[in-house]
């Protein structure tokens, strides 16, 4: 069974690499790009991807066969689009100061990402080990979130104080907090869910939780507000609050938490709207972007034009004006996809994300331990919420916030964090499959890694 799972993964990887290679080829054909970077990337990436597959075969042979290929596919499609936009930059440049291709640095981050996913598999032999670090994860996560506020370390980019600069490198610590906090929430809730489920009184037909149980959710809410206020980062604040409320619901099964969460979110959002000009502006631009099409709404309007220009089937890779949208390589990479691959292309991307999230939730469903369930569900929520907030933001379903598109967008911190999540999901999946397998003596022998693999 494990071998067939890995063979499925291998077959999918071959397909994924083929699709990506075709994408690069089409971009280079359409843009008459002759630079050798595509071929160099193709070879390097193929070695890397199969290397990662080898490590999974070795360390997590029973893991879900779809997660790794989907992550690779999304990442390579993102790389392809970044390459396409690099070429556009190059074409529009007047010979002087050729910019370094961002596709190259993204490839380096991809390498680091896959390496760290493998390292995660190697270090975390059983996801239940992580439960030991409940409060370490909490402190680590909160510290990462608040790190950019430290004077001398934090840096403000585009109005949001999300970055730290250290030794010439910039890094978004909140991205790593996206792993640390699910670990904390999952292990905290796994320990306390029994007591939190107990309801003492009912009010207007809904259960009212005990005051002492409401402490954590209020704390999480306050932390989110703090992030919103201090770092002017709507997206991250929304993500963490949504993650916490979602996991609270999963852990306790009480809709009360969802209602309370919604109320707190609404009040927080209203507070933010009343207190901060930039939040108001975001909302105004969201409601009527065309009135701001030359200033604050320029980006979203250009993105909408990009989507419209792409139409149902897109203009073809390398053939649109996707570079017109500011930050097309990072925050607005979806508009580049929409313009060049059309609605059909975006449906494909959305489905890839959808399947990835559903696989993570499937792992959560099949895992037997509470912590594993909550962690997998938390990771699924982080991916799903990010995707929804970004996708909804650039397509004007909801106001624009500053979150990165998982796997697709240029940006090292997010990519590395997402790959570590992939590593964790693979680990939970592997452990779960082995534990659930009735008696897989033969397969258990082929794995040299699992300490829990003794099915006898």
């Amino acid at each position, binding site marked *: 069974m494990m071998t067939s799972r890995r063979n499925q993964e291998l077959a999918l990887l071959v397909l994924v690499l083929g699709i990506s290679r075709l994408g690069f080829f089409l971009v280079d054909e359409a843009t008459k790009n002759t630079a050798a970077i595509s071929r160099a990337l193709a070879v390097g990436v193929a070695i890397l991807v199969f290397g990662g597959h080898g490590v999974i075969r070795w360390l997590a042979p029973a893991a879900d066969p779809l997660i790794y290929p989907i992550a690779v596919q999304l990442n390579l499609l993102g790389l392809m689009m970044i390459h396409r936009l690099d070429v556009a930059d190059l074409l529009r440049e007047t010979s002087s100061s050729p910019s370094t291709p961002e596709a190259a640095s993204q490839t380096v981050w991809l390498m680091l990402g896959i390496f760290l996913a493998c390292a995660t598999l190697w270090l975390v032999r059983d996801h239940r080990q992580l439960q030991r670090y409940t409060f370490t994860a909490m402190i680590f996560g909160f510290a990462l979130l608040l790190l950019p506020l430290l004077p001398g370390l934090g840096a403000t980019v585009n109005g949001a104080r999300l970055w730290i600069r250290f030794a010439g490198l910039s890094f978004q610590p909140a991205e790593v907090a996206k792993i640390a906090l699910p670990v904390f929430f999952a292990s905290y809730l796994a320990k306390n869910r029994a007591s939190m489920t107990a309801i003492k009184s009912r009010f207007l037909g809904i259960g009212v939780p005990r005051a002492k149980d409401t402490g954590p959710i209020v704390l999480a809410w306050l932390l989110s507000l703090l992030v919103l206020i201090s770092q002017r980062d709507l997206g991250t604040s929304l993500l963490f609050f949504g993650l916490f409320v979602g996991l609270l619901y999963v852990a306790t099964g009480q809709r009360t938490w969802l209602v309370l969460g919604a109320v707190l979110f609404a009040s927080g959002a209203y507070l933010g709207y009343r207190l901060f000009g930039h939040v108001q502006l975001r909302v105004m631009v969201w409601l009527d972007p065309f009135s701001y099409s030359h200033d604050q709404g320029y980006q979203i309007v250009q993105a909408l034009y990009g989507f419209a220009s792409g139409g149902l089937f897109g203009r073809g890779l390398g053939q649109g*004006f996707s570079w017109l949208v500011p930050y097309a390589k990072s925050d607005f990479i979806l508009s580049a996809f929409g313009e060049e691959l059309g609605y059909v292309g975006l449906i494909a991307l959305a489905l890839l994300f959808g399947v990835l999230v559903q696989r993570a939730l499937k792992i959560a469903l099949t895992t037997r331990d509470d912590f594993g369930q909550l962690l997998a569900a938390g990771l699924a929520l982080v991916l799903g919420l990010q995707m929804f907030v970004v996708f909804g933001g650039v397509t004007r379903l909801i106001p624009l916030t500053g979150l990165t598109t998982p796997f697709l967008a240029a940006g090292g911190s997010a990519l590395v964090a997402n790959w570590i999540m992939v590593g964790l999901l693979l680990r939970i999946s592997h452990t779960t499959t082995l534990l659930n397998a009735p008696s897989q003596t033969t397969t258990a022998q082929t794995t040299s890694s699992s300490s829990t693999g003794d099915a006898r």
Partner: protein
Amino acid sequence: MSHQIRRLSFILAVALVALLANLAVTQVLQSDSLRLRQDNTRLLLEEYGRERGAIVVDGVAIAKSVKTSGTLAYERRYPGGEAFAPATGFYSLVYGATGIERLYSPILSGRDDRLIVDRLQQLIAGKQPKGGVVTLTLRADMQRAAYDALAGRAGSVVAMDAATGEILTLVSSPSYDPGAISQNNPAKVREAYTALLDSPLEPMMNRPLTQSLPPGSTFKLVVAAAALESGRFTADSVLPGPAAIALPNSTKKLHNWQLGPCSKSGKVTLRRALEVSCNTAFAWLGMQLGADALEKQAQAFGFNDSFAVPLVAAASVFPASLDEAQTAMSSIGQFDVRATALQMAMVTAAITNSGNLMAPHLVKNVMSADLAVIESTSPSFVRSAMSVSNAEVLLDMMRSVVTNGTASSGKIDGITVGAKTGTAESGTAALPHAWFVATGQFQGRNIVVAVVVENGGGAQEVSGNRIAGPIAAAVLKTAFKQGN
């Protein structure tokens, strides 16, 4: 917890559907309206990102797109320059397009449905898409000769092939450089455009097609045609040609430009009346024929009708419900009679072409980027303006105007030329307009020319001959140059 996880999974799936449904509205349903929004630069970039096809005259591009290093991939250039501006028009980022650039934009930009096979081929071959080519009927040498001969004076020259209706020359003077308005720098475009608008001579006006002026004595060709067509007069009919005739119901008199009778006897034949451009004889003739007959003849030549060549030409005017005095004045091309240079060229062309009026046209053919002809204009017969025999008589009379009459400047060695002069009072203190229409026959080809120089000369009938005549002669000479 399985129940909650399933519920969570459902919520996320609903969110995904909401995303895609919302996106469908933007990307599919509102796609066209978003695409056409004013501040959407993509349309422009798209147009300027493709190589727009050339406008060609005699196998040489007079308008073409060249690659630039700027944001817009191509820039429109006009090697034909000012001389060809009335035909090409301009293609501007700021002010849109005019002329052939506007009318044939779907072809030139490659958007035309007939180019779909071409587009597919380009797509499959991986070539940059390229627009189609429009070839004009103009002859570059005649166009330049006419433009140079006008030498910056306000006026128009139209030359046509009488047998086909092909417009060989379409000159407006003074003209403008379409390149200045079609460059990719909007600030410079605005500057150039404003300067042109401020110029009192209206260089962007398409005079040969839109400037209607009193045609003066050239209109006597229409009156003579009406007389012959009436059957009551021949070339040899004798008409009164006194120094002046009284205008009915008016104290005014209509004088000859010679300030005397048209002959010693005071009587002239119709032929002689045309030769010396006898005002009194034609005024009398017009009153004899009546306003209705004149109107009918004028309309047979194209008056009171606007047409597209495909650039839209203003309708020349022969006024309705004239009294006798007005009919007399109209018979010598004054009062409210107005004609464009194109109209007078059409009158001359119909006379030359056995009375058959051919539709004037400027576009020879339309080709795809790889020069496969996808549309070509064939000569189109409009109507018979006069009988074959009468046309022959009138053409012969025009020839004697050159040999024995006022149009001596139309003489060209080796070419049979017929012509008619005109000096039209412009109704103000300004100098009159000098007209000259000519028809030349050489080796079976019939080419007609109409020239008007606005406020071009003295009050004498001779000014048409002296000022406009040499321009017409230069154009005809070029038209029949050996080797053409």
